[in-house]
């Protein structure tokens, strides 16, 4: 099972959602933002090495943190040497070995986001309530549609309520409120369940994960 977390606009919280969804689903989180990775760094081979054909994707999965992570390199040279056409095979290999993979996709509609969506069984679109973020999130949904990655859930991040997101996107929506608990957890690179198990955000991420699982099992 491969779930792509997409959003169009940068800075809406895709990485936070991917990390927490990965934790809830006990999945490997793959940081596929080749140019601007922001999930934690780990030692050892990373996705740049994998996409340059220099490392095995399963070997590159780091199991030392709270969430199993296939990290992404930070160098421009590594991003330049990466071949996005290898991403689908890498994701298939990770999902084959570990069962579940959650892909933190880059912002925008580039071929790296496209390659992840092409390999994905479903996607989660992340947006905030702002008009700009919503417009970009709709374009991500269009790309997901064109690549046949079904929209499982919409996350309205930093919001108390989902508003009209479910009608706008045509999929169930989950609101994740802005909170210090999420900010602290994200800064430490840990899922909010670890640092604040009682937080509202933890409940919402659990609800999101349950929804994603339901949509995939009924598909």
């Amino acid at each position, binding site marked *: 099972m491969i779930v792509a977390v997409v959003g169009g606009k940068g800075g809406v919280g895709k990485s936070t959602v991917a990390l927490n969804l990965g934790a809830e689903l006990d999945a490997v989180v793959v940081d596929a933002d080749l140019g601007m990775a922001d999930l934690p760094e780990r030692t050892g081979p990373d996705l740049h090495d994998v996409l340059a054909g220099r490392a095995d994707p399963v070997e590159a999965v780091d199991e030392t943190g709270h969430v199993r992570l296939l990290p992404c390199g930070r160098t421009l040279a590594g*991003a330049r040497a990466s071949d996005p056409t290898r991403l689908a095979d890498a994701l298939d290999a990770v999902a084959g070995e570990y069962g579940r993979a959650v892909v933190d996709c880059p912002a925008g509609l580039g071929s790296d986001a496209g390659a992840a969506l092409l390999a994905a069984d479903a996607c989660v679109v992340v947006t905030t309530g702002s008009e700009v973020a919503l417009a970009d999130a709709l374009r991500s949904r269009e790309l997901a549609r064109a690549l046949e990655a079904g929209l499982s859930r919409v996350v309205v991040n930093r919001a108390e309520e989902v508003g009209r997101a479910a009608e706008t996107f045509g999929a169930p929506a989950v609101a994740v409120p802005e909170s210090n608990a999420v900010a602290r957890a994200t800064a430490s690179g840990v899922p909010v369940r670890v640092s604040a198990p009682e937080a509202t955000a933890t409940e919402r991420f659990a609800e999101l994960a349950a929804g994603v699982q339901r949509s995939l099992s009924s598909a």
Partner: protein
Amino acid sequence: MVDLETATHRAGDVTLVECRLESDVPRRVRVVNRLAGPVWPPRRRGVPAAGWDGNGVRVTVEGRAGVGYATPAPPADPPATITAVEEPEGAGDRTDDANAFDAAVEVTATRAGVVRDLSDPRPPRDAIPGTHPGEASSRQSAKVELADGRVRQSDPAGEERQPDRPGREASRDHGGRGAAASAPNGAVTPADEWLSAVERRIELLECVGAATTLPDATTAVDAVGGLEAVESLAGTVAADADRLARIARRAESLAGRASTVEPDLETLRQLA
């Protein structure tokens, strides 16, 4: 009505596409590449000029306008077409169709289609320093570069993880790829990138050639992006073969000269 006239010029391995647009009334149009390769748009300060994406450009035409781009694909007719026309913003209320114009994502749902139709996420080569000081960071020290160019992780417990676990034969085939022409400092050179691109093209064509049943052949052709794309790919690979043979001859000659050149350093030191 918007008229489009196109012309192509082949310069080395690149096709230059010229598009001349003409309209009596102001119109916003989308011009899309039809050649079997990525669009290399004009760049301003290292990034694609306004209006360009991975598959074409949106431009407002009032009277005459011209746009042009490069692509590694061979010429074909027509090289580009108009896929959408609308009134420019401000010329009236935007309709749902106009919004659809913005939201439309044109991409073929295949691996080759994704790469061909969507923008390349990689930073331009000009943005990469000749040497890569960033690579020499502390995290790099945790990696062990194997003789075949692959990387593995040093285990904190001191026992290295074995990259070649049973059942990973497919991935092992990738070992050493890209290392053949690497610079002595391990940096990825344009030669590496070109060889990798050639290797991918050959692999794609091999997949098509290996198909023995109709469903396999259909899948393989779809993966490339259709029959036209396969024909174009075959032409490119034939050109690759010629160039590789020329490079092989030159490499052999250079290797011979490199192994026999022996300047009399002792005499030079005495003279210096």
